[in-house]
């Protein structure tokens, strides 16, 4: 089943590096997932996170406020 990955962040450097990490992991491991970047603050607040960037996988917030490592993202996606 295709996983829906959402990256919440208003476009700061940290959010961009999180997007990079997630994209790399999905591409390198051929994971069936779609990435959606959510940059609108009103949308972000619907997830009730206080620190960005945040990573949401299938509607569950898995990471907030920091940039994860590739291994971590891989573990979360499997």
């Amino acid at each position, binding site marked *: 089943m295709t996983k829906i990955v959402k990256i919440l*962040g*208003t*476009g*700061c*450097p*940290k*959010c961009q*590096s999180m997007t990079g990490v997630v994209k790399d992991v999905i591409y390198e491991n051929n994971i069936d997932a779609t990435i959606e970047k959510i940059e609108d*603050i*009103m949308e*972000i*607040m*619907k*997830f*009730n*996170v*206080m*620190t*960005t960037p945040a990573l949401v996988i299938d*509607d*569950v*917030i*898995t*990471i*907030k*406020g*920091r*940039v*994860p*490592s590739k291994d*971590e993202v891989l*573990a*979360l996606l499997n």
Partner: protein
Amino acid sequence: MFDWLQHFADWLIYSVFNIGAETHLGTALNFFVFDTLKILILLFFIVFLMGIINAYFPIERLKGYLNRKKLYGLEYFFSSVFGAITPFCSCSSVPLFIGFVQGGIPLGVTFSFLVTSPLVNEVAVAMFLGMFGIKATLIYAVSGILLGTIGGWLLGKFKLEPLLSDWVKKILDNKMQQGEYEEVKQTFYQRLPGISRGAWDIVKGVLLYVVLGIAIGAAMHGYVPENFFNTYLGGGQWWTVPLAVLVAVPMYANAAGIVPIVQVFVAKGVPLGTAIAFMMATVGLSIPEATLLKKVMSLKLIAIFFGIVTLCIIISGYLFNLVL
């Protein structure tokens, strides 16, 4: 502490490049190498330290604490301290702001956080430590925190809730359910690589500003006559502090780039208090920040917020000049 670095700079410039210690170029280059390396080392350590504190800082619990307890005014102070130790990322400021207000924390207390968050940040602290020493750094950090405390308290007196954006008010009305959140707990050693990478990223991000700032500063050192500013700005004219602050408010300068230049101003006769007030207005208030806040507040509220904070900075500028 940095003796070895001075030896290295001496060796590099005077021996390796063979530029004489008695030439202008030699001393300027020596100065530049020493300052740049010293600042970068300080910057990395402080950013790294803040990264560790942040990784373990219980934001959610603090939110609950500020909300539940009767703290007799101390809540403004705590919120301000909290703003000082969170890393400044403008994009996190707004979500934190909403999270606070939504959690039932009074608007004034939230403002305390919002004032201090950009004002006292790890980059500014490291730069201050490197360029002005520990005493000025402490003055900067402590007064920044007090400024947030007092500014927030003042803003809290105004009953500003009606001036928030409509959608924020809507959030306040219907309590939102907690988003589903599962985080795999990681040990300190698992997090350490991420923290040091984060610190390195921040240092890399400001590297260019540090180098440019120090280079411009070093060049100015040689060309601006001694006591130049003393003649024009340092003579204790009452209008210098407000002028410095008002010029600085709309400016958006990276703390990393502005501190070395401010240091030259001080060396050439501008009073330290005026310089600190200028710094505070530059990093604390800016047009880009106002643009971000526009999403959660009405223009009127932003104007009141900036107005009060500007006033506080001007007053503290006078205070510094009296005390220092």
